[in-house]
């Protein structure tokens, strides 16, 4: 058994393997994302190119991507968040961090990727590198309002003391 490079903890032959060799297709946006990462690990740039949406095919040079990836070694994938992109969805986004070694340095590629179904198959549409998260919003509690901890006391007499 060989663990799949995408860090799913599943055997390669039950995870990205069949998607890469074309015996099956990705059922979810996340599965496609994982298979595209594994394709980078394995140097299978055909899979990367074949899973691009038609409108971005003209801006991807497979052999150039391959030639320039020589000094890059992918060392780990972490899926941070998936929105939609399930078996019943038509679109989806995946937020991920992929670690790689380059010139002896460990780097992280963080990306929020957009996926879409094209003739039933998931394809990669676009990505935002190092996306900014939603600004954190903090609800202010007035000193005389009931304490949010549910004690029934005023905030100033309870947690806000």
């Amino acid at each position, binding site marked *: 058994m060989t663990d799949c490079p995408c860090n799913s903890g599943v055997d390669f032959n039950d995870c990205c393997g069949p998607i890469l060799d074309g015996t099956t297709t990705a059922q979810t946006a996340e599965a496609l994302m994982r298979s595209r990462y594994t394709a980078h690990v394995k140097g299978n740039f055909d899979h990367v190119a074949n899973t691009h949406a038609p409108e971005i*095919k*003209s*801006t*991807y*040079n497979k*052999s*150039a*991507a391959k*030639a*320039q990836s*020589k*000094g890059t070694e992918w060392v780990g994938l972490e899926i941070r968040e998936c929105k939609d992109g399930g078996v019943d969805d038509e679109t989806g986004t995946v937020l991920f961090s992929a670690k790689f070694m380059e010139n002896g340095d460990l780097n992280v*590629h963080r990306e929020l990727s957009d996926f879409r179904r094209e003739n039933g198959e998931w394809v990669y549409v676009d990505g*935002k*590198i*190092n996306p900014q998260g939603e600004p954190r919003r903090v609800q202010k509690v007035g000193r005389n309002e009931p304490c949010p901890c549910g004690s029934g006391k005023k905030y100033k007499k309870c947690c806000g003391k």
Partner: protein
Amino acid sequence: MKRHFDCTACGKCCHGWLPLSISDALAHADIFPLFLFWMPVRPGGKSYDLTRELGIELKLKKRKRAAVRVFPVSYVPTHISCPALQNDGLCTIHESKPQRCRTMPLSGARAESDQLDLLIPKPDWDCDVSDTAPLIYDDKHITERQNFEDERQVLIADSKILKPFANLMIDGAPKLRMDLEKVANRPKGGHLILNFSTLVPRLADVDIFKLAKKQASVMLHFADQTAERTEFSDEHKRYVACAQDWQKILD
């Protein structure tokens, strides 16, 4: 204000940096040392609105902004002649020469109303700007339009590739943004220079190995030309590093 101009084929403007379209850069990759210029313009600077259209808008600190245009350049040191310039002042690639050369002295990268300063020849140029030369600029309108329009169209087409590329690079490399900010804040402006190879993964039809072969040898040629000339030591280092960069692809 009327401006007249006729080219006397003196070859004096065929020196130093030459901005190129992507296709002109690729077509002459066997002679031009190709780099990518990143040139910020601050609001109020030359042709800001056009630069923002052809390039990207960058938010800087303190709510300031800059428009940044990215474009390929034949990076020949200032005062060194273009590799396509013959001793008699004529061009060896005249039939297929870049659109930038054809449009000279006008520029498709500048607004039509913002061309006047370009039409005053540099002190050592031999352009014919007498009243007998054809009228090319009249009251902020270009009268001889064809090459100007052609260059503008090429720049617009290139921007469809260069804009997403620029955004991706800036998002992926925080240092690039910081460096651009520094350049944008300089009173005299300036530019950053990246290797042309960074763009190639976005150009679907380019054979990177053929290109790397051409460019590796061009860079070595220019590294030779600038060796042991202190005034070109910056350029020299760049050629050497870039030659290695292309060579890595071939190894």
